[in-house]
C-alpha cells in the first residue's frame, strides 16, 4: 500500500507515492535514484546508509520514509556544489581514504556531522565521531587522516 510523501533531497523537492513500510534508504536509492547512501547491513550497524535529516546524521536503513514527511535530506551527492568537491570529499581524495569505496559516502556524512559540531576534533574525537561507521578495508588510519585534513583546511 502506498501513500504520498514529500521530501527535499539535496535541494530538490520530490513528491512520491511510497510504500508504507519503505525505509528512507529504499526511497533515496530506488525511487530518487541516488546511490551515495548504500545498503550494507540493513540493520543500523554499519553506517554506509548514513544521510543527514534536517542536518543530523541518521541511519536511513532503519528509518521509515513516512516518518520524514516534509524534511530536508542531504546525501553525499549533496555535499559538493556542482563539480567542486566539498572540503571533506577533497580531503578523502587527498588522504587516499578510499579503498573499495562502499563505506565512503556514509563516512563522509558522519565526518560532516562531527565537523559541524566540533570543527577541530582530536584523534579520539574523530574515532568516536565515526564509531557508527564500519570500514572493512582501510583499518581507519587514512579515514582519520582525511577527517583531520578536512578539519585543518576549513
Amino acid at each position, binding site marked *: *500500500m502506498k*501513500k504520498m510523501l514529500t521530501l527535499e533531497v539535496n535541494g530538490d523537492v520530490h513528491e512520491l507515492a511510497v510504500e*508504507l*513500510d*519503505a*525505509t528512507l534508504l529504499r526511497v533515496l536509492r530506488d525511487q530518487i535514484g541516488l546511490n551515495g547512501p548504500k545498503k550494507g547491513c*540493513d*540493520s*543500523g*550497524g*554499519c*553506517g554506509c546508509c*548514513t544521510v543527514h*535529516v534536517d542536518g*543530523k*546524521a*541518521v*541511519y536511513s*536503513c*532503519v*528509518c*521509515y520514509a*513516512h*516518518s520524514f*514527511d516534509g524534511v530536508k535530506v542531504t546525501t553525499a551527492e549533496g555535499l559538493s556544489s556542482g563539480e567542486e568537491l566539498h572540503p571533506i570529499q577533497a580531503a578523502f581524495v587527498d588522504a587516499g581514504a578510499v579503498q573499495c569505496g562502499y563505506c565512503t559516502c556514509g563516512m563522509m556524512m*558522519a565526518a560532516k*556531522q*562531527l565537523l559541524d559540531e566540533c570543527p577541530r576534533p582530536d584523534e579520539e574525537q574523530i574515532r568516536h*565521531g565515526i*564509531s*557508527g*561507521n*564500519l570500514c572493512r578495508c582501510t583499518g581507519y588510519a587514512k579515514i582519520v587522516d582525511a577527517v583531520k585534513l578536512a578539519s585543518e583546511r576549513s
Partner: protein
Amino acid sequence: MALYKLKEFHAPKNMQEAINILGKSQEAEILVLAGGTFLHGLEARGLLSDVEELVDIRKAGLDAIRDDDRGLLIGATVTFSQIQTLPSVQRTPWLAGLSDALAYPPVQIRNTATIGGCVSASCPFFDVPTALLALGATVMVKGGEAGERQLALPDFLAGLFVNSLEPGELVTAVAIPKCPGNGASAFIKLEGNANDLAIVNAAAYLSVDSQKTCTEAYVALGGGVAETAVLSDAARQILIGSKLDAATLQTASEAVTADISPMSDHRASAEYRGAVAKVIVRRTLERAIARLA
C-alpha cells in the same frame, strides 16, 4: 523492512490524536513508533509480522523537557542527542551515569533513538534503561482505560521485549527524580565493538552524608544478565550504611549474583556474563564514588 500486513501509517499531530488512534484501533495489531531504530531488530526476529498499523508519535508534541528542582521530566520523543545537551546532564554528578550511557551509541543512533522508545522496547541489552533504573526513573503513561498512570521503571519492564502497557496506552515521558544531598552516578558498558549491544552493562547511584557514610545506593545491571535490566537489592543492602571502602565494594559487587540470571547468546555465555558482571559493577561503583563531592 517488510511489514506485509501494514495498512496504515499514522503521524498524529498531538497527543490526544495519538491516544484517539490507539483507542480506536484496539482490534488491530498496532505499534507505536518513536525513533524506530530497534524496530528492524524486532522485525528480523519475526516479532512484527502481524503489525497492521504504525503510529509515529514524533510530531505528537511529546518532546518537551522540564529540568527543575523536582528533577528531569523528559518527553517520550526526546532524542539521546537532545538529552546530552542538557546542562544538568552534562554537569551534575547525580546524572553523570545517564551522560555515560548516552555517550556509547554512535551519533546516528543518538540523533534518532528516543527515551520513550528505549524504555518501551524493553530490550535487556540496551544501555540507557540500565542507567535510568539506577536513577529511580518513572514512566509516565497516558491513554487506555486508566487514562493516565505512572509506573516505576522496574514495574514497566515486564520481560524480554515486553512492557507493561495496556491496550490503548502510550508512554508520554520519563521522569527522573532529583536526588537530594551529595549523590553521584556512573555507568559502564562492556561491548565487543563500538557499535554493538552490551555484553554486560552496569549503573550505580550512591549518596553519602557528611561523615561519608552511604545513605542511598542503587545498582542496576543490563546486557543480558536477565530478561530485563534489573536492580540488585543484595548489593544495595550491603552498600547502605557502609563507608564504601574497597572491601565493601568487592562484597557488594559479588552479591549481584543473587539478583541476576544471565543468558547465553552469540555475544557471550551465561557463565562469562555472570563473571564479568561483578567486575563491571565494582568499576561502576568506583567511578560513581570518584564523582562524589
